[in-house]
């Protein structure tokens, strides 16, 4: 693990040395800004509802996840393979897992950073909400926790697809398809099988249902374990794929 800090630093620099980091963050803030404004507008015109502003806001998490996570991860290993820099990297005294881990950490850091920027919305809400409706910070923090916990797993899946090809577009599309399956298809499965045993499994797996809990302030250990093990599995597979040059 000695080399992870140096590798991670290189990853973070790479995001901001190219336009990619800025473009991703710009799109993210644009989409989230628009949804924030429309949610606030709707609540103001309708008066008080069951939903708080941040709950409405968090429920849009799937949109940037679906599009921006593959955009962040597509480059990571596919580009190294295409440009041949993987050879130079792997012939330094560095293990394959160190490289995979640093790339995952770098992407998670970028993802966390862009979500952290939306913390400004909380400040704005707090400023204008007045004392009688003071914001409850607990559910907001647990909502952010949910965002990061789910996001880091999606990033691990995206990194895995990037290891499988040397074409960034292919990596994007495969990652998009997998994330679509995970986020949307599982939710549909849950929607149509509610009340049955299968429905319970789908409910447990559905990121939307988990996010519902997180943003209400419910931090359940089960999804945490699920995502931790999912990430470990995805990173393990990624490392094996990178190593596959050695047994193919």
């Amino acid at each position: 693990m000695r080399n992870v800090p140096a590798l991670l630093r290189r990853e973070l620099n790479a995001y901001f040395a190219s336009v990619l980091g800025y473009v991703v963050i710009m799109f993210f803030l644009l989409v989230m800004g628009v949804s924030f404004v429309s949610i606030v507008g709707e609540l103001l015109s309708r008066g008080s509802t069951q939903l708080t502003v941040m709950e409405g806001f968090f429920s849009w998490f799937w949109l940037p996840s679906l599009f921006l996570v593959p955009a962040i991860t597509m480059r990571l290993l596919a580009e190294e393979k295409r440009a041949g820099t993987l050879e130079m990297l792997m012939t330094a005294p560095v293990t394959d897992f160190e490289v995979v881990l640093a790339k995952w950490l770098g992407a998670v850091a970028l993802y966390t950073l862009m979500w952290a920027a939306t913390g400004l919305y909380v400040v704005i809400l707090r400023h204008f909400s007045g004392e009688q409706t003071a914001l409850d910070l607990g559910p907001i923090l647990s909502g952010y926790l949910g965002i990061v916990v789910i996001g880091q797993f999606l990033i691990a899946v995206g990194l895995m697809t990037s290891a499988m090809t040397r074409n960034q577009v292919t990596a994007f599309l495969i990652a998009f398809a997998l994330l679509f399956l995970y986020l949307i298809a599982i939710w549909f499965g849950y929607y149509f099988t509610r009340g049955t045993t299968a429905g319970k499994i789908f409910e447990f797996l559905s990121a939307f249902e988990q996010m519902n809990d997180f943003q209400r302030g419910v931090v359940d250990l089960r999804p945490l374990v699920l995502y931790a093990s999912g990430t470990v599995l995805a990173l393990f597979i990624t490392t094996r794929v990178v190593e596959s040059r050695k047994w193919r």
Partner: protein
Amino acid sequence: MQPMIKVENLTKRYAGVTALNGVSFEVQRGEIVGFLGPNGAGKSTTMRILTGFIPASSGRVEVAGLDVFENSLEVRERVGYMPENNPLYVDMRVSEYLKFRSKLKGLPRAERKERIPEVLEMCGLTDVSHRIIGQLSKGYRQRVGLADALLAEPDLLILDEPTIGLDPVQIRQVRQLIKDLGKRHTILLSTHILPEVEMTCNRVIIIHHGRILASDTPDNLMKTLHAGGLIQVEVRGPGSEVQAKMRALEDVESVNAKIIEDGYVRVALTPKLGTDPRERIYQTVATNGWTLRELTRTRTTLEDIFVQITREEDEAEEERREQRRSVLR
């Protein structure tokens, strides 16, 4: 003393293709060895195995007495490698890149601060150290790759086609650099440019179709394989008579005469192995009263040897195939 590189019976098969077929060789400490072969001969594959990027299908490969597969990390610490096409992170600045690489190679901070300016100086990169690699010319990029390979003062330098794509001036500079480096490092470099090997290497390994065909000093290869070279003569005289007299000479293997302008005849002679018939040629010309205006011997170059060896191998291969076919019939 333990050899720097020891390769025994190395075979590498990719799906359906045998890239290396029972290759064995050794490189002693302090040698500069040129790996010579046409494209696709197996040079890069051998180097990738030596640096632990890909494993061998079978055979044993040791660097400084360490097995490259079992002690991969230790081997990589001792080897400075410049891969084919010299891949670099083009979005980084030269000094930034070298700093990153020296961290990966485990240089402590103090050593790093000393070593980076040193290699920058050595490779003539000091003036461009703040520039972005992607904006540098190919020659400079090549030197960045070389600087990277030198960072950790490795025992062994493995350079895959270090002069490819450079202009003649840059090629000279890089060759000179390699020669200088050879005083302190063991070097294995690959190329398909022959004068390069003649100029920089103590020993040549010729590889073709995944097999080693020859391994010797450039001089010895030239001596044993094709001593005489060609002798070219231009005389004024009757064409057929000149050809006949030349052919009758001792030590002459074959003659090829051609009439050129003003009654001059150009004769190309191949002498027998290890002989020099130039004196006899002059005497023949003088006794016949012809006018001589040229008598030169072209030295056999490594290039001739290379073409000869690989062609013999190809012919032998063809013969084997032919035999197999006739057996099948």
